[in-house]
């Protein structure tokens, strides 16, 4: 008897069908070839709603192989709900090994943070992006922002930064500070804190961005110039924790979470959970080094 094995597996490897994977792969190549440009793609249906990390998931599932070691974080934490569920899903669909260890992973997906530990050329880093259009706050129509990007007409963006400074004395953009890629496209780095922005510049790793709800893919290749938007006299700066240290480890050269107690007082703790674990265990760490972090006294 000839056995029909075709329908024994309910899903293709990595869930997405091969034709859609190829479409995403073609678009990713174009995204890499045009750094910072938002490439439209199909954004196929996933078992989670668009806007809950589908873009990152599309990128991950289109490039993941059986040999990959997968790590996923949500705002720095391996244990957050979004990260746990997406990790379970990717693991179930691919059979890949998963890890919490940043240095061990070959493919890392993230929501709104870059790891504290430096990433290497052997790793690929995938961002989940809610709003890929940095100009959306100054121009509501897609066909207009697309034209502005095409013509590198970013005057409105600069004016909005200027107005923010004039009104409030600072550029009030915390997460997702706009950056200029390779001197051409202005790009939304996804809502990562300012702390992480310098780590995009001249990095070793390939950064891929997937915005599932908005149906856009974009990329920052390694060794690419990434400049936060700033004025000659109003410079970009990273978060200032006013000399606060992590209450668990005493470490101060990492992005810190504020923890509020019942009495209203607050304490700080290192945000990146794997980094915190390593610090507490006294394991060797290799954090990102950049000019902004170096200015912090240890």
């Amino acid at each position, binding site marked *: 008897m000839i056995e029909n094995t075709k329908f024994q597996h309910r899903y293709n490897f990595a869930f997405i069908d*091969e034709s859609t994977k*190829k479409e995403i*792969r073609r678009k990713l*190549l174009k995204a890499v070839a045009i750094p910072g*440009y938002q490439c439209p793609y199909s954004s196929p249906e996933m078992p989670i709603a668009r806007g809950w990390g589908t873009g990152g998931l599309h990128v991950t599932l289109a*490039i993941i192989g*059986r040999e990959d070691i997968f790590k996923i974080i949500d705002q720095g934490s391996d244990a957050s709900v979004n990260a746990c569920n997406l990790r379970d899903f990717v693991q179930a669909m691919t059979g890949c090994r998963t890890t919490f260890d940043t240095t061990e992973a070959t493919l890392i997906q993230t929501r709104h943070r870059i790891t504290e530990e430096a990433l290497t050329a052997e790793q*690929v880093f995938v961002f989940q992006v809610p709003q890929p259009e940095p100009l959306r706050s100054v121009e509501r129509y897609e066909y207009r922002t697309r034209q502005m990007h*095409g013509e590198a007409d970013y005057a409105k963006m600069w004016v909005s930064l200027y107005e923010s400074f004039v009104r409030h004395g600072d550029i009030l953009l915390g997460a997702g500070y706009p950056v200029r890629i390779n001197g051409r496209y202005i790009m939304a780095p996804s809502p990562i804190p300012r702390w992480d922005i310098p780590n995009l510049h001249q990095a070793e790793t390939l950064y891929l961005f997937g915005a599932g709800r908005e149906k856009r893919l974009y990329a920052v290749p390694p060794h690419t110039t990434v400049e936060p938007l700033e004025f000659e006299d109003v410079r970009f700066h990273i978060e200032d924790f006013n000399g606060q240290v992590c209450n668990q480890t005493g470490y101060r050269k990492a992005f810190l979470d504020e923890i509020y107690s019942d009495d209203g007082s607050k304490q700080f703790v290192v945000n990146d959970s794997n980094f915190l674990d390593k610090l507490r265990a006294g394991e060797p760490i290799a954090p990102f080094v950049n000019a902004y972090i170096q200015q912090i006294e240890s």
Partner: protein
Amino acid sequence: MQRETLYDAVFDAQADYRLLLDAMARPGKINKLPRRGLTPPPGLSEAAASVGFALLDANAGFFVDGEDVAITRYLVVNTSARPVGIAEADFVFAGGLASPSLVASMKKGTLAYPDEGATLVVDVEELAAEVRGLGREVEAAERHVTPDSDSTLALTLSGPGVAGERVFFVRGLNTTLVQALQECNAEFPLGVDLVLADGAGRIACIPRSSKVKWAIIN
């Protein structure tokens, strides 16, 4: 025409794609695609066929230089991609000695949608990251020597994906094709992305974001 039965459309395509993505993200870096036991018709290397297999499907249009019937049939049978005219093609397959007019007829995309620019897959004789003792000769090489098919080109890339500059060496690539590509990609973000493939399975990429300098070595 032969249907490739040894090729695994899921896992081989994924592994080859990751190497291709790595090569595109690091222009001039030479990656070696594993041998898949493919038997493409003459004029198409195994590496170029692998690139086609990893990216082409029924939603992609392709064009083979010279409208080579055997290669076109081979790619249609194995990928279901649509053969189209060069002006509509998303992927163009050519040899390293192809006419530079090829590049001028390819899609470059529009300012609103530069991603519609085509990908050119070119078969060359050999790709190498290093040529022993060539360092000094590269410096000395005259930039506008008349090329012939046997000459080795030193391509120096800079831009996104490259720390400083990266040099790699190509044998069997027409300098006029490189010039045509430089002209085509002068107006970033419009342009064409190049994938070079050789007979030993090596690939290297030159995306439109790269600045290219070239010198003939011998």
